[in-house]
């Protein structure tokens, strides 16, 4: 079902299976037929864990989305609400339950909080007079969700804002909890490295949590050699730039949510030729993007400029393969051909999709980009991205320039954005120059962030993901694995937050004796979000023959510059 999760060096299917087991156990507690009422936000993340078939095996007969008034009719014994612990959702649940009561035959109600139970929500249910109606009230701690064979995310949109703006560490606590779950499944990680204030906090929490578990010794042979915790604010610059990998561009332009993307339908012809004309689809085309699709796995991390040639090569191969049917004369040959058909069809379908997507991206990118985005609705975000980019690269803007930008933005987009500008300043994305030295050139030179001779087709360095700019975050990871951070002490001191190393001692039986040539496995956790281009760069490093390290990536949120700035904007309550 989710075979792509086990392709990587670390079998993330183990994690998926563990959370599925928990889900099954909960469902079985509510004996008999059931209906699930979904907080719609959760269906995305849950989709990565379970399909309807799993639920059906456990007698889930109906599913609804949570909305006001009464529930749709359903002849089931149990009604289970799957919700985030949010007060406004409690109000809707209460409405559902109360109108159900009046209707007659009583059903058993249950509530599953994701990712955690909240006493305050239960208080709200109590105030509304329905708490007593629930038999089971439990929590489902879905902290880290497996997205792909080497990728985990908490999908917590507000994490960056909460950590760096509000100083609320709740999402760090959950990151630490997620890491404890991972260690329970994949063994204690012997070495922890980190850079940044939040990284320090998470490491502290992990060490503390481990101390509390003194009762049982983890006897699983460790899969991960290292953990690297990185604060997003160590590298504020990278997400501001436009990602130029195939997957990165899809995300920049259309936005990838829970591994799905919605695309304008025009480029996707209706399925059968006969349907053409009349029923042109008007609904967005939704596609899942992950390494389960062979072609996508091959092109996702390439620079967009290298994608076209791969697609055209593939098109030629597949056309030739289909032509083979004319040569199939004997029954045996025909049989042979037919047996390959399913695979060829899959390949053809996926090729058709990706040529269409590439075409869409091309249409967007060749246009006059900046002007277009100013005319568009979300243009303010793009403008803010540019301004922040300039500020971060220069260790701040001259006061005069900053004031000028501010005034232009406020006059053009509205005075209320003064609040957003303050948020950006607080997060360090926008600031006046303080007269001190501009450290960026030192960082840039030492870490070789700007590469002149970038090869987009056959890259030799991670800088290909931004056509010449190497993401600082990934360079830090690369240098940690070889030759080690000692070589860049000076730069590490310039970058914000402490850097540190912790060891978690292992019993001798669990200590690994690495075979010569065997790669290390590093789990790298981005606190505050990670972009697809950074992921691409890390995958590039994993694949290097003499790289020595393979990476599994975890984050609080998969993001891009737009979704990031959007999360920092001030909206009405």
């Amino acid at each position: 079902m989710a075979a792509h999760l086990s392709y990587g060096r670390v079998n993330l299917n183990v994690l998926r299976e563990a959370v599925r087991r928990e889900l099954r156990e909960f469902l079985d507690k509510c004996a008999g037929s059931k209906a699930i009422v979904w907080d719609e936000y959760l269906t995305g993340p849950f989709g990565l864990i379970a399909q309807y078939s799993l639920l059906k095996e456990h007698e889930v007969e109906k599913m609804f989305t949570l909305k006001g008034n009464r529930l749709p009719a359903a002849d089931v014994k149990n009604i289970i609400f799957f919700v985030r612990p949010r007060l406004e959702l409690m109000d809707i649940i209460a409405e559902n339950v109360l109108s159900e009561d009046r209707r007659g035959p009583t059903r058993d109600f249950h509530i599953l909080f994701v990712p955690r139970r909240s006493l305050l929500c239960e208080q709200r249910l109590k105030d509304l007079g329905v708490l007593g109606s629930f038999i089971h009230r439990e929590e489902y701690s879905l902290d880290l969700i497996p997205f792909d064979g080497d990728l985990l995310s908490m999908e917590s949109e507000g994490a960056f804002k909460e950590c760096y703006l509000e100083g609320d560490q709740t999402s760090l606590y959950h990151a630490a909890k997620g890491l404890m779950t991972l260690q329970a499944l994949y063994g204690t990680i012997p070495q922890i490295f980190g850079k940044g204030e939040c990284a320090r906090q998470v490491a502290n929490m992990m060490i503390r949590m481990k101390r509390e578990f003194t009762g049982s010794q983890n006897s699983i042979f460790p899969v991960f050699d290292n953990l690297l915790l990185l604060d997003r604010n160590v590298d504020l610059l990278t997400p501001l730039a436009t990602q130029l990998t195939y997957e990165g561009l899809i995300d920049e332009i259309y936005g990838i949510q829970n591994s799905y993307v919605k695309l304008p339908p025009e480029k996707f012809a209706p399925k059968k030729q006969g349907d053409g004309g009349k029923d042109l689809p008007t609904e967005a085309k939704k596609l899942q993007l992950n390494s389960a699709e062979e072609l996508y796995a091959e092109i996702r991390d390439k620079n967009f400029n290298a994608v076209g040639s791969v697609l055209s090569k593939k098109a030629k191969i597949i056309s030739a393969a289909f032509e083979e049917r004319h040569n199939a004369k004997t029954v045996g040959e025909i049989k042979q051909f037919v047996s390959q058909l399913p695979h060829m069809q899959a390949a053809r379908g996926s090729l058709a999709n990706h040529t269409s997507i590439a075409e869409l991206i091309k249409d967007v990118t060749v246009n006059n980009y900046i002007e277009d985005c100013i005319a568009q609705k979300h243009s303010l975000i793009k403008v803010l991205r540019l301004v922040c980019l300039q500020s971060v690269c220069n260790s701040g803007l001259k006061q005069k320039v900053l004031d000028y930008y501010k005034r232009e933005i406020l006059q053009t987009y509205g005075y209320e954005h003064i609040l957003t500008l303050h948020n950006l300043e607080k997060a360090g994305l926008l600031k006046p120059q303080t007269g001190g030295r501009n450290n960026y050139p030192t960082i840039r030179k030492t870490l070789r962030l700007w590469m002149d001779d970038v090869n987009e087709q056959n890259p030799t360095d991670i800088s290909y993901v931004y056509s010449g700019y190497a993401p600082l975050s990934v360079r830090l990871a690369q240098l940690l694995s070889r030759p080690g951070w000692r070589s860049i002490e000076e730069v590490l001191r310039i970058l914000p937050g402490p850097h540190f190393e912790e060891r978690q001692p292992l019993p001798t039986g669990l200590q690994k004796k690495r075979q010569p040539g065997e790669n290390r496995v590093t789990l790298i956790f981005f606190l505050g979000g990670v972009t697809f281009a950074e992921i691409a760069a890390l995958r590039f490093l994993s694949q290097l023959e003499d790289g020595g390290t393979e990476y599994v990536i975890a984050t609080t949120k998969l993001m891009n510059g737009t979704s990031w700035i959007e999360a920092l904007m001030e909206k009405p309550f």
Partner: protein
Amino acid sequence: TTTGLIIFFQSGRPLGAGVRLGMGLRMNRTKGDEEEYWNSSKFKAFTFDDEDDELSQLKESKRAVNSLRDFVDDDDDDDLERVSWSGEPVGSISWSIKETAGNSGSSHEGREQLKSRNSFSSYAQLPKPTSTYSLSSFFRGRTRPGSFQSLSDALSDTPAKSYAPELGRPKGEYRDYSNDWSPSDTVRRLRKGKVCSLERFRSLQDKLQLLEEAVSMHDGNVITAVLIFLKRTLSKEILFRELEVRQVALRHLIHFLKEIGDQKLLLDLFRFLDRTEELALSHYREHLNIQDPDKRKEFLKTCIGLPFSAEDSAHIQDHYTLLERQIIIEANDRHLESAGQTEIFRKHPRKASILNMPLVTTLFYSCFYHYTEAEGTFSSPVNLKKTFKIPDKQYVLTALAARAKLRAWNDVDALFTTKNWLGYTKKRAPIGFHRVVEILHKNNAPVQILQEYVNLVEDVDTKLNLATKFKCHDVVIDTCRDLKDRQQLLAYRSKVDKGSAEEEKIDALLSSSQIRWKN
């Protein structure tokens, strides 16, 4: 549609076509100097190799692949994951909701889906989550102090996996089973989702110890739960005083108050902490929730004079003045429009109210509907320009866009005409004439008009490019003649219509013996 353009040509040089965010990084790499960061022409834009070539290659691949359809799609793709048109894999959770929600559940492309989609849209009005994690964010948009008053009831509730009947019991009956949990035990239990009463912690010292335990666990939910308890049982002064020396807890409280919208306590807190700017911003933020324009205006008035930074103070004052203006203009124009006597409103009915629009949009509006008004009226563009100190560039750009949209070419002309003291007129454009040409073209200006402004572009290469792009033949021909560039003129001959006046003109020039061609 010109709003905001000006931000990109700070030095009079717009970032060119195709320059994208990612490219910013490659600019100016030889000079580390930040000064010229934006303005330098050295940056190399990311371009797609052989653009047309590759696009056609893509299109060809697509054709090839699609042509296989007829052959393939006769039998259904049994081995593939089945996907409905909307792309949900058949069997996925969101697909199944649509499926099982309907009674028939037979056609996932049919009416049922439409029905459920409607229900989705009503759902979509729910606020988007900022976080699934932070307790504070659970309260977003809700102010029901009532439910927090009795928080301790929730905390002294029955054990985690309790059953309904127990909850019905009167409060007195389920006092804590154990009364001697230490603060650290209590916090640990709270963290595990178990419940226990906080009421027992009566002395200030106990309460603070409880808070410190919660903070040391880092679990924001527990910290907030304890803070709510403290907020309820301590006086404001003591609470603030104690939190001032406990920064982590203080930040959690501020975040919590922001999320539940307890504005009053938040402002008191900022006042106590002497954080004057945050106090001012928090107060100002409230205006976002006020829909009624008059009330919003009155509220903004109360923001003037709050301790903002000097620049921000000016912006806040402007915000108030702008809304005040907009209310007057809106009332007046709505009246004019409905009376039906004013030509401009009859010909170009207003698409939306001007209330709460940004300043530049308001200026555009006033250039569109009130261009000729005397400076004394609130709605006149000149008055807006003066009141809000709108820079020349911004003003010209906006006025140009508005007048070009109305095809009022005389106004456009006047915009760039300056008279010197001798009475001679001169054309001058603070935004550069290349910019003027682009905007005119976007508004479908006729060639004669375009030509006039293309001719005013100073840089010869830019002029030639623009003239070629917009088919201003005369300008191209004259420029080639002035440059004595026979080759280029010859090449251009193939671009004009056969037998046209332009062709004749080119031929005449080419055969002229008066010109000493450079090539």
